């Protein structure tokens, strides 16, 4: 923690950056912090409650951030993949950001989560995580951390769904999507959703109905999933932000499985690895095509 604070102080006081994006203690646990004064560096924290993916604040669609000057950002290994995604999709220039990696031992699903991290409180993406060590970083701080507690659960749930009949799966998802109020929190929090104007907001023509209605809800979630294929970094922010507790992480995980299976692509913090959509291979599987 001290190391992180010292680094931030140096970066700010030397004028290298105008803002350090990190976490601080808030009334309901950890919360994002935007440190612009070297003196405030000591507010920075990092622990298991720092579940937020701060890369979303690098999106050029947040002009108020740009006004703070060049940014340094604190990333967990998983978050670094989002930064890589932004680099890949030319939203951020590498020289315009200082990346501070932190070593992670898993985070809680809820930033207010109490110590210690347990199998019950851990975010569902963390058990079995292979991205705890950030590679895309100018500085890496902190000691190596223990494995997150608990065991992966999502793959089993996906397998369970896959085993259902189509009408049953339909019923399952319709029940989940029925709660959607189209608040767009999933989109707003997502570091990879940086469109100037989301297709969901497009009106001429309106492909996706914007009112909370089963038809538009379905179209929205299919489209969101499709747009995330090969781009989603599995930071879990959409699910955390969802006020309706729709298990978007399950859908994200499924997509990750599809692109891994079909295109041998896995989310990575190496920005030079090209994303699978936008590319093709002559030998792509086409068993679904007559």
């Amino acid at each position, binding site marked *: 923690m001290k190391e992180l604070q010292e680094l931030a102080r140096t970066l700010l006081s030397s004028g290298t950056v105008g803002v350090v994006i990190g976490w601080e203690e808030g009334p309901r646990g950890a919360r994002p912090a935007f440190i612009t004064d070297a003196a405030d560096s000591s507010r920075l924290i990092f622990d298991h409650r720092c579940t937020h993916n701060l890369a979303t604040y690098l999106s050029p669609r947040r002009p108020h951030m740009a006004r703070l000057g060049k940014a340094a950002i604190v990333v967990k290994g998983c978050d670094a993949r989002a930064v890589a995604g932004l680099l890949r999709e030319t939203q951020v220039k590498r020289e315009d950001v200082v990346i501070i990696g932190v070593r992670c031992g898993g985070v809680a699903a809820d930033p207010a989560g109490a110590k210690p991290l347990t199998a019950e409180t851990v975010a569902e993406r963390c058990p079995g995580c292979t991205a705890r060590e950030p590679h895309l970083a100018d500085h890496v701080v902190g000691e190596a951390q223990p494995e997150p507690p608990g065991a992966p659960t999502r793959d089993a749930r996906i397998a369970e769904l896959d085993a259902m009949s189509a009408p049953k799966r339909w019923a399952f998802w319709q029940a989940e999507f029925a709660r959607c109020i189209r608040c767009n929190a999933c989109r707003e929090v997502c570091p990879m959703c940086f469109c100037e104007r989301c297709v969901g907001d497009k009106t001429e023509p309106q492909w996706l109905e914007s009112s909370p209605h089963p038809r538009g809800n379905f179209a929205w979630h299919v489209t969101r999933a499709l747009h995330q294929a090969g781009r989603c970094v599995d930071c879990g922010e959409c699910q955390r932000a969802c006020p309706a507790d729709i298990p978007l992480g399950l859908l994200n995980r499924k997509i990750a499985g599809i692109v891994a299976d079909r295109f041998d692509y896995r989310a990575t913090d190496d920005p030079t690895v090209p994303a699978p959509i936008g*590319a093709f291979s002559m030998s792509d599987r086409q068993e679904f095509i007559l």
Partner: protein
Amino acid sequence: MARIGVFVCHCGENIGRTVDCARVAEELGKLPGVAHAIDYKYMCSDPGQALIKQAIAEKKLTGVVVAACSPHMHEKTFRRACGSAGLNPFLCEMANVREHCSWIHEDRDAATDKAVDLARFIVEKVKRNVPLETIRIPVTKRALVIGGGIAGIQAALDLADGGAEVILVEKEPSIGGHMSQLSETFPTLDCSQCILTPRMVEVYQHPNIKLMAYSEVAEVGGYIGNFDVKIRQKARYVDAANCNGCGACQKACIVRKVPSEFDEKLGKRTAIYVPFPQAVPNIPVIDRASCAYFKAKAKGVKKDACGKCKEACSKGAIDYEQADTFVTEKVGAIVVATGYTLYSIGKDQPEGLRGYGEYGYGTIPDVIDGLQFERLASASGPTAGKILRPSDGKEPKRIVFLQCVGSRDPAKGIEYCSKICCMYVAKHTMLYRHKVHDGQATVFYMDIRANGKGYDEFVRRAIEEDGARYVRGRVSRMYRDGETIKVQGFDTLSGEPVVIDADMVVLATAIRPQPGIEQLAQKLSASYDAHGFFNEAHPKLRPVETNTAGVYLAGACQAPRDIPDSVAMASAAAAKILGLFSKAELEREPTVAKVDAALCAGCFHCERVCPYGAITRIEVRDRKGNLVKIVAEVNPGVCQGCGTCQATCPSKSVELQGFTDEQIWSEINALLA
């Protein structure tokens, strides 16, 4: 409010028999925005078109829908009619109620319902059509010809004579291609080099032609009329400006036993060499892989590396330090004339092909291919034109020729006919008889395909006058028996198996595209078939064009071709290009994509999927000149209108004109009437 005119064509009985055209017109007439709906016997006829023009004028139509045949048949006709009546042509669309409806259904009600649907979709689409203007792009009146064989030479000369500047790129040290290796040519038996070398010299001396031998196309950017081509000039290690072609370096070279590519490995050359005496340009190259100097250098030897050629050169033209150089040329059109290579029966084959184990995978001595026979028969060849067996230099008294080796053999991976083999085998049997009077040529053939002017007469001459014995059937197996080769086949006309003893066997192996052609095709964004031959834009009506505007084909890169065909294609391609160059600007259909810079977030997925490289990055700045963002822009000259960018764009910030989201959405929306 739209004022659409709907015109339902009976196409005589073709549509009217199954579709109630009057009902279609009636139903369509009820749609909001449809101001006029009629049916007529022949909409494409002059009176039919007059009806459309009259309605445009009288009813002040804002769009026209013709429910008739496929737009592939008459879209141009009706758009032109609208244009002449003052309606923007792109406000006219067709609904296909013939090929897609009346011709494939029998139930009149169902077919009529479907026709109403199809026309309604198009009505809804046309309501969202906007006037489009034909695109005009400037033309650079220079052409690139890739490949310096007979096709490339012909194309270059025709273009240059027509006043265009030409850059001729040849990957080998000399132009001439396979034709320069041939002894005589069918069906006239005139000497190949005698008719070719004057043209090679003409290329060299032509003021409009820039010859770049020993060079390859590295990159191709741009589009019709405006290509940017990056060309790699491979290091010859000889300074072309100083070399006077005296040949002293070759005499001095200590490495003298490199198998000669020009002689198809039947002869030898030095490490510094010109491929053949009439080479153009007559400038040697050093074959780095066999050169004693470079080998020694590679081993780290510092002193006493060879250097004999450098010592021998009075002009100081040898330059061991020379490196590949790149030049970029701007051209308006490209002719691909990369020619062919021969299939070999060996065990190692490219993907999808198999060799002939039954013919010994090429390990039986004195089994050669057609080009090797050409070199044996050529006066400039390794045997000075004597037909001698490679193994022992004896004169073969019995030669068996096998046609269709690789060709028409799907099991080996090639189902096509190589086209030229029937003819050159006949030629070989004649050359053989002329040189070895008591020699017997036997030909195994499947069919004799001699469909050119004077071709069949030529084959008959080989049989009737020069004693070639033709056996119809494939050879099953070939094996060595002492000094003879046993050729085991079946005479399907006699219905009997035959075994023929041969002193030499010549295989008419399949014609294949040059290796690396796929990469070139990808650079040119041109398509190619499963065998790697370039695809023509239309097999009948656009045989020398590719689907990439401005890229043309000549010769065997498109399919197996003989010399007359290659030359004809080359001249055709040149004529196409000269036609293109005759205009100051090009006109193109405006079916191109357009980016909405305000909405573009600059993720550049579009750039990645565009097959044509039509997407460029541009900076958006505010009034003060501050960079706001970098966004995509479509170069309308390059864009061919596939629309992949639009489907890929997550925010739908790029629209394909003529097929906009609004138009398609309206069509789909019309699904439920």
